[in-house]
């Protein structure tokens, strides 16, 4: 992982991943009425960004761009709150990456990042619940439900990402030695 700025190619790829995430979310909404399914798409695209771009901040940028696009296109009906919905898990992943040893196998890195993203995503619900005045027990139960289902979907995505990245690298489509 290096900290050099993003070139235009990287920036466009991050943007296109965010676009695809929002487009798929728009296509699948209401079709999959399962709680936490959005963590599958979010984890998948954020981790792909991390693997393909390999620079600090790539995930946060993808999350913020996805939030802006979703807000602009009216997907998710949260208005400016969508920035938090997409941005918070992404920022949590990037912060976690600063602490995560890079020697750890990619599979485990992806799993840890996906779980961190789920905690951030579920925490957003927890804070919202407390702010609107739900009782502590109800909030805790909803938090646990989000954490459980969100983690399942996020883990599924995290397991799929390393083989996809490995395949992209072996076909000369990305050039990141550390992956």
């Amino acid at each position, binding site marked *: 992982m290096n900290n050099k700025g993003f070139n235009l190619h990287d920036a466009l790829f991050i943007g296109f991943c965010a676009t695809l995430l929002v487009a798929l979310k728009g296509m699948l909404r209401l079709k999959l009425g399962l709680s936490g399914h959005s963590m599958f798409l979010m984890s998948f695209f954020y981790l792909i960004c991390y693997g393909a771009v390999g620079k600090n901040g790539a995930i946060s940028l993808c999350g913020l761009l996805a939030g802006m696009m979703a807000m602009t296109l009216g997907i998710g009906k949260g208005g400016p709150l969508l920035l938090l919905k997409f941005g918070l898990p992404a920022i949590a992943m990037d912060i976690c990456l600063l602490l995560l040893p890079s020697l750890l196998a990619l599979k485990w890195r992806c799993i840890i990042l996906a779980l961190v993203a789920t905690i951030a995503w579920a925490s957003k619900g927890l804070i919202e619940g407390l702010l609107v005045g739900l009782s502590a027990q109800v909030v805790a139960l909803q938090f646990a439900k989000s954490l459980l289902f969100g983690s399942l979907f996020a883990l599924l995505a995290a397991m799929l990402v390393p083989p996809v990245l490995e395949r992209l690298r072996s*076909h000369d489509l990305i050039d990141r030695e550390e992956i």
Partner: protein
Amino acid sequence: MALVRLSQIHFNFQTAAQPLFEDLNLTIAPGECHLIHGYTGCGKSTLLKLLLGILERPWEGEREIAEGATLGVVMQDPNVQLLRQTLGAEVAFALENLGVASNEMLLQVRSALRRVGLYISLDTPIASLSLGQRYRLMIAAQLVLEPDLLLLDEPWAQLDDQGVAELSAVLNQLKQQGVALLIVEHHRGVFKDLVTHRWQLSQGKLHGVAPAQAEASPSQECWRESPAWPQGEAVIDSHGFTLAFHERQKLFDAESLLLFPGEIAALVGDNGCGKSTLLKSLAGIQADIDPLGIKVFGKKPKLGRFGADLALLHQRPSRQLFENTVIEEIQFSLRRFGLPLEWAIELLGQLGLTTLARHSPHTLSYGQQHLIALASLACFRPKLLLLDDPFAGLDEHFTSKIVALLLELSRQGTAIVVASHRPIAELPIDRLWRVADARLECFGMATACEKQAYSRVG
């Protein structure tokens, strides 16, 4: 005074056994037009990248550009070069990046658009332009930078005959204004009136080609001498329909459409006339059109309804490749449809691609990827094969391989529809479906000959 000079260029890809360029030399002066021919994958596009200074891998030799000279380029697919949504904004993009004051942009943008003959509103959405217009728009977007040399990557393959004629007129005018042109094109005999220097890129060098050697017969349909006589039930059957998008202008009217097993039909018409839409409708995957009433295998077409009986090759078919090896890619459908896996090996042998069986499809050349994508459909021997522009960007070598494959499938009873914007001279056909003036007309060999004789007398 040379504008650009390449001397003793050596370059090879890491994986390639033979160098792509070996002692390659080229000198271009103002007002010249160089046309470079070459087979698919011989390095034409790489040469353009080298000229532009954007080749990422190391190379040897000298590249000299006259002081202050500017280069412009229109890539193979102009769509990937279009960065804005309206005509004016697209042309102004380079001016914005140079920091030209907003009030000075309008004049320069209008002048560039006039030079390419685009007299339409600056607010026109790019999505509403034809491919030929987009190509000229891309040239205008380069002209605001006042390029001394304009590079064009295979324009003939993308454009229909009208688009090529419009482009030729624009290029002629630019050449007269002193702009040097370099066109890479595998098809011979195009831009005849324009070219001052012709080259053949082969074995890493540019070899001069005499104009007489470069002549090629114009594209004309080729009828099958021993046609496949109608046998069995019609595969495609319609008694007339109108192809139109919901609440929008119609694309064309057709009286009737018939295709029997083993027959090959050519669907020919200009860009944007509705060929792809018709093919998708036949496959049952075009969503926003009015009902057509066409029957395929006696049923209304729907995605997934016909299983292994129907296959459609989209444009840019390499998009569908995803497996680790060529053999896995071809065997994918055989596994899903429960067919013998040996058919894949047989087909690779037939296409002379056995040596590539264990290669990654993504590391192959454009032509090879195209062929693998077609093979991945042909291997399950569908009863109806629909092909959308299957010869785009392919040279004679790959074209002949595809033609041989299609004729073999036809012998086995597959009905085939091939869409293209000009007739394919190499592919013998039984039926011609021509779209012109919002009408689809159907010809067999007899009716086509009659019509030709009539027009000669007329």
